[in-house]
């Protein structure tokens, strides 16, 4: 069930109605839990027990960590929770990848295991892990109710593609009254609509072009490949950030706040800044639970850079079991390391405020943008070989089929304007959402959006890119 489907609209309306007529707080929570499991079961009913079991184990081990009197006992239960979480994730997501690579190294043949990847497993595993790690570190209080905990892990807006919600952010919200308020309905509805526009009007309309080019890059001219690279960069942003906005909006309707996940990443002036703006809930998760656990920046310059590299490498692998993702993560790790060195070098040998000049900022922006966009090529390519062919043809400006479509350029232009508008004045955007749906401005906006969706939304909406992770 995807957010932009009629099924979801019916499901959501029914849930709203049910929550509205029920008075008991406990029943409301159970309704949300039940609805979340139905939402998940709509993909594959057989994985609902996996979700419930994995949450139950997470909760149970959390209780054990708290109940343990000794540091050794606490550590034992933490390690057990990490091992179980990563074990399940590893089996479903990486068994074939590692199996095939190890078999290849040993000169053997790997028989591909027929494993279906449960949707959202990477997301709910990380939520479980963050809970037990936080309990171990003593930064949060344990959740007293199993059903509340399962709802925290399985809450349908964020279940399959994030944002990755921390227990410290979400569990306290489950202790508050769930009341459907007009204000939340309006604000949530507007945020949801904003996300839907990004998804169906921009991302889905870019996907047709992108799919053609990436399926056979050897056929197309260098110019076309450059255009497709930028188109994919915008597609993945609009797709993922659109999904996140819809998740935030849907949660908001019930009065829940989910964390911000994107902050116009393509206006970044460095790779470091890009990761502060792109998939924020993942990058902060990796920072807090992996980078810091590896020693962070507390063990000298070299270890800091190495820790960054390892974190990004594993972050890449988190996205999928393929060398393409490993390469993507590794290069981002190298980019972050180089930027760290550059900042240190600049502070020591090139003092002054020259790096704040407009021309330097422009240079930094172009460099960062191209670096991040080029790295989307391995991320999107079907095979590692395709990535190599793509990048080689792109930089050699090879001859080939010129497949440059004005619609794509127009859509890219619109997306760029959206970023520039945000960069120039984020106050413009803080005008949204608004409380008066019948103001002239809002009637115009809503009617225009409706018309745009009717005219331009693809009939068969593509699945969200991040569902595969």
């Amino acid at each position, binding site marked *: 069930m995807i957010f932009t489907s009629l099924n979801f609209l019916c499901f959501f309306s029914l849930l709203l109605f049910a929550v509205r007529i029920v008075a008991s707080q406990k029943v409301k929570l159970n309704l949300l839990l039940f609805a979340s499991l139905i939402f998940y079961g709509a993909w594959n009913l057989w994985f609902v027990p996996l979700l419930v079991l994995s949450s139950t184990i997470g909760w149970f081990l959390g209780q054990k960590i708290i109940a343990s009197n000794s540091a050794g006992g606490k550590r034992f239960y933490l390690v057990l929770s990490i091992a179980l979480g990563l074990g399940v994730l590893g089996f479903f997501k990486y068994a074939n990848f590692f199996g095939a690579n190890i078999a290849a190294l040993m000169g053997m043949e790997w028989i591909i295991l027929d494993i279906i990847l449960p949707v959202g497993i990477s997301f709910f595993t990380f939520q479980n892990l963050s809970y037990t790690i936080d309990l171990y570190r003593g930064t949060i209080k344990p959740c007293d109710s199993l059903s509340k905990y399962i709802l925290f892990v399985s809450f349908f807006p964020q279940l399959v593609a994030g944002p990755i919600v921390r227990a410290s952010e979400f569990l306290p919200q489950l202790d508050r009254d769930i009341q459907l308020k007009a204000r939340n309905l309006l604000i949530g509805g507007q945020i949801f609509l904003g996300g839907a526009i990004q998804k169906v009007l921009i991302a889905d309309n870019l996907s047709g072009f992108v799919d053609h080019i990436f399926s056979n890059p050897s056929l197309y001219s260098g110019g076309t490949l450059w255009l497709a690279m930028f188109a994919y960069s915008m597609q993945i942003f609009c797709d993922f950030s659109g999904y996140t906005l819809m998740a935030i909006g849907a949660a908001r309707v019930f009065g829940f706040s989910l964390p911000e996940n994107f902050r116009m990443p393509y206006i970044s002036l460095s790779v470091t800044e890009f990761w502060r703006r792109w998939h924020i809930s993942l990058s902060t998760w990796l920072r807090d639970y992996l980078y810091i656990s590896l020693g962070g920046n507390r063990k000298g310059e070299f270890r800091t850079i190495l820790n960054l590299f390892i974190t990004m490498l594993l972050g890449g692998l988190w996205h999928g079991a393929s060398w393409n993702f490993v390469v993507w993560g590794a290069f981002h790790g190298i980019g972050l390391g180089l930027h760290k060195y550059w900042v240190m070098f600049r502070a020591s040998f090139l003092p002054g405020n020259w790096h704040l000049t407009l021309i330097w900022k422009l240079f930094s922006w172009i460099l960062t943008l191209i670096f991040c966009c080029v790295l989307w090529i391995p991320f999107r390519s079907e095979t590692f070989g395709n990535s190599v062919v793509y990048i080689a043809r792109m930089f050699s400006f090879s001859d080939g*089929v010129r*497949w440059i479509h004005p619609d794509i350029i127009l859509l890219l232009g619109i997306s760029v304007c959206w970023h520039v508008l945000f960069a120039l004045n984020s106050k413009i955007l803080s005008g949204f959402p608004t409380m008066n749906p019948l103001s002239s401005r809002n009637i115009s906006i809503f009617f225009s959006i409706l018309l745009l969706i009717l005219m331009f939304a693809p009939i068969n909406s593509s699945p969200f890119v991040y569902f595969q992770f």
Partner: protein
Amino acid sequence: MANDLKTPIFFLVVKILVIPLIILLIAEAFTRIFITSPANTKFDSELLWVYLPNTTLFRSHEGGARLKLNSFGMNDDELPSTKQRHRVLVLGDSFTLAAQVERSRNFVSLTNDQLKCVRLINGGRDALQPFQLPIIRNRLKEPLQIDSILLVLNKNDIFGIKSKLITARNNAGQLEWKNITYQKSTVRELLDPVMRHSALATVLTRRLNEVTMPEPRPKSAPRQIDAEQKELVAELLRTMSSADDVRILFLPFLSYEEDRRVVVVEETKMAWNVLSEVAGRFNIPVVSAEIYFKESYERTGQPAAGFPNQVLGALHLNESGHAAAAAALTTLYGDHCN
């Protein structure tokens, strides 16, 4: 007090009515400039629909040429009443109509430029069914003073020729074309005038059509042409060539692979084999544009068919394809001009 209450409600109603109206007008203008012209067809009991004469044809999703149809509703210039050249009526589907390229760049015009002895007249029509070929020929032959016919066919015409709607067996067991009479539906009666005046309504109706259309057939093994289809192709060519001098241009579907390899789609091969064999039986000259498309791709690096954002190599001919098809036609009619 009463006034205080009434005024906002009045303005609210005005606002709710006027603002969408203004947006609709803007959308209509936007649609006409960037997306499509209003629908330009009218109901026809034999052909289901025909193009309205002297109307504009513009669809931006492929190509984006803005064409003015002539007084016969054809994508061609007005014909002089006195005939100066041998007139060839070109009958085919949307590949022949060529709504995607400027008129001067389609294969009919390019051939006319190259061959001064014949005047090809574009009788192309969207979604043409083979059974409609004799009907269109009969309607246009006299008014346009046609001397001969050129059929432009592709694999879809051969594979799609079998239909219970259009064929029946007579008492002798032979296949025959059925005379079809369409009835105008109430929906059509209601929508036609709106669509003829509004490009926006045209777009929205087409989108509604897309929603209600069945899912496309999943890719599977190539279909086969059975004996009945072959018999129908023969019947069609016999009908067309019995009264006129007929020639055929076959447009192949090609697949563009890595390293500039071009592969002929399997179904195209089958259709071509059947067509060339049956045409031979009736001594109808026939040419395939295959080598011309391949040569053009080799030379320009651009495929003959397809537009950006559509499937590469499929769908309609682009300018490269039209030029290559014109080269094929020059060969086909070369003897005529010698």
